[in-house]
């Protein structure tokens, strides 16, 4: 649920705490070897803390059940906390040593950015608070490119539980068919589709202004700066001030976001995520800017009656730029180095990584797999062309300057554009540039 809040560009999930000491001990004892190492039989209590979300909660519960069945000596205490309180709880439990398996997401800060902008999880990893999993045998279960994407300073601290894509839109196939519309592959085509729908009295786009308005910005940025290299260059340019937020292309981002707002349902600024989802399911709008994590919910709510698909938001005029979806690695599990039952924690991660168990998790969670050779659900099969190459989304690359003002957080200030705020795209670009510059 709330982990999807894209306004939080730091994925402050999980505390993976790995201690170097543990690593030494671990590699000697080879605990990740699946089942029958007599040193490796876990027992005792395993405290697990994650942030709450329907799909992943169900997935974890399924795995926990199987884990307890396999190792009767272990009791798994699973806590899933809603986002509003998650950080406070995680912080306190971590301090008290009450987490054995949790979530963490250390993001490496490039060399041209001062280390003071590191996120908390990165600092944690630096300080030795996460157990280093690099040499654990169970890590070989995962797709190497994904592991590379989440490496932190050359080490693996986290287990990637899945991938999500969110630079696209869901669309109602029946509405599209009714008006003879094709999936747009350029921005102009997208605008045309929207205008056609409007002329027939259909709301083109559903946006949840209250909870996830940032996703539109991310969708637009994704294909205006198509490759990871482009995005990194943009970030670097902003940091060394060769690029301004008031330059043509950055401001273009805000202009296109505004266009999306204009195509959205009336009063979307106050619409919650749940209302938007149910609106889409009921056919109140033709498209919905959202992420693939919502797919299981849509499926459950709409059932076989709803005929829907997902395509990348074509923010560029060049179809080749719009070929892929941007995404991120979802919840990443890690082990704190002050865990009181590290043996069980590592055994759990090992168990989780076994393809059979991992599949049972994916089935509930609705993520895309981070292990190779896993059969995709029908939905993910339908978007396989868009996910052939994994493109990281903007919020996984961008690191904000903590010294800059709040309007330069993302740094595109979509929140101030009417009707969410009171500014025009130009004004918002100027405001965020001023805020950005103030941090240097």
């Amino acid at each position, binding site marked *: 649920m709330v982990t999807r809040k894209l306004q939080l560009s730091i994925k402050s999930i999980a505390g993976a705490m790995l201690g170097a000491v543990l690593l030494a001990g671990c590699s000697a004892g080879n605990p990740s070897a699946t089942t029958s190492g007599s040193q490796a039989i876990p027992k005792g209590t395993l405290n697990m803390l994650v942030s709450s979300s*329907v799909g992943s909660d169900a997935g974890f519960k399924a795995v926990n059940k199987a884990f307890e069945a396999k190792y009767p000596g272990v009791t798994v205490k699973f806590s899933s906390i809603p986002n*509003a309180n998650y950080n406070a709880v995680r912080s306190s439990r971590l301090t008290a040593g009450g987490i054995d398996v949790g979530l963490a997401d250390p993001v490496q800060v490039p060399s041209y950015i001062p280390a003071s902008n590191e996120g908390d999880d990165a600092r944690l990893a630096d300080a030795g608070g996460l157990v280093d999993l690099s040499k654990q045998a169970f890590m070989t279960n995962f797709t190497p490119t994904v592991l590379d994407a989440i490496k932190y300073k050359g080490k693996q601290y986290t287990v990637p539980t899945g991938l999500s894509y969110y630079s696209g839109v869901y669309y109602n196939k029946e509405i599209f068919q009714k008006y003879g519309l094709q999936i747009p592959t350029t921005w102009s085509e997208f605008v045309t589709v929207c205008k056609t729908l409007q002329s027939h009295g259909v709301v083109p786009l559903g946006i949840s202004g209250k909870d996830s308005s940032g996703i539109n910005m991310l969708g637009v940025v994704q294909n205006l700066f198509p490759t990871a290299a482009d995005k990194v260059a943009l970030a670097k340019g902003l940091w060394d001030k060769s690029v301004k937020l008031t330059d043509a292309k950055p401001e273009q981002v805000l202009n296109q976001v505004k266009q999306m707002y204009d195509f959205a349902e009336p009063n979307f600024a106050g619409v919650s995520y749940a209302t938007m989802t149910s609106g889409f399911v009921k056919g109140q709008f033709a498209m919905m800017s959202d992420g693939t994590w919502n797919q299981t919910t849509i499926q459950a709510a709409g059932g076989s009656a709803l005929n829907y698909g997902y395509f990348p938001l074509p923010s560029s005029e060049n179809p080749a730029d719009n070929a892929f979806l941007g995404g991120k690695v979802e919840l990443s599990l890690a082990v704190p180095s002050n865990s009181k039952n590290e043996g069980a924690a590592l055994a759990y991660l090992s168990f989780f990584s076994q393809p059979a168990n991992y599949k049972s998790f994916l089935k509930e969670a609705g993520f895309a797999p981070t292990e190779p050779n896993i059969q995709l659900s029908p939905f993910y099969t339908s978007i396989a062309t868009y996910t052939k190459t994994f493109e990281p989304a903007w919020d996984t690359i961008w690191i904000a300057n903590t010294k800059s003002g709040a309007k330069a957080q993302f740094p595109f200030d979509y929140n101030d554009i009417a009707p969410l705020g009171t500014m025009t795209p130009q004004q918002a670009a100027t405001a965020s540039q001023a805020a950005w510059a103030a941090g240097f």
Partner: protein
Amino acid sequence: MTTGRILSYFAVAVVMVFYLFPLVFLLNTALKSNAEFFSNPLGVVQHLAIGNFGTAWTRGNFGAYMLNSIVYTAVAASLGTLISLLVGFPVSRGYMKHTKIWYGLFVALLFLPNALVTQFQLILHINLYGSQLGYILIMTAGIGVGPLLVSGYVKSIPVELDEAAALDGVGYLRYVFGFLPSLLKPVLSTVFILQAIGVWNDIILATILLPDQSKSPVTLGLFAFQGTYTSQWSLLAAATIIVALPLMVAYIFLQRYLVASVIGGAVKG
């Protein structure tokens, strides 16, 4: 009826609409099944889904948590009220020197900065982390406006009563615990109820200080419904009504004491 009274009833009616309508709407939502709320969020419920309360009760594990909440609230609010009395009465009478400083302290109690992090560290360092005692102690200390309310109310009890009791040989403590409570019923009930509400509705301190689910209060049961963005509104509505009910009962019970006023009689004597 005089026009005055008609007007009064009319005013009351207006107030009631503003208060009852949202509450009834909540109840209405709680009685709808998920599917019905999904298709018709606004209208009056067509098919009563009383089962929602049962589902909410089990899903939120309220049975186990209810007892915890009752214990925490009863103990913390009672102790807190006691403290408010012990501390508010003597200051109001001037029995403690430096009255102004104590009043200042009472007021300062109201706007203490949010000390979540430091309270947690304190509890952790005195080894009460995860214990119900630690949680109750923190909750007890949240007396808020209690001493101020008691001080204010005590002013309307004439000093002559104190003097009369002392002449009769009643000691201080016996006076405070034996005589005063009945005189101070309205304000003590108010203080108790105010603190009880704070303790009963606390979520954040409970999640931080009590990681063990068996010690969780009822508010944590709501987490089972809060995590979802799907149309679980009806279950959530049912769950919130369950959480609110015991406090409501307690309030109705204490209401009677709020009404009684013994002051007039005491003054006459």
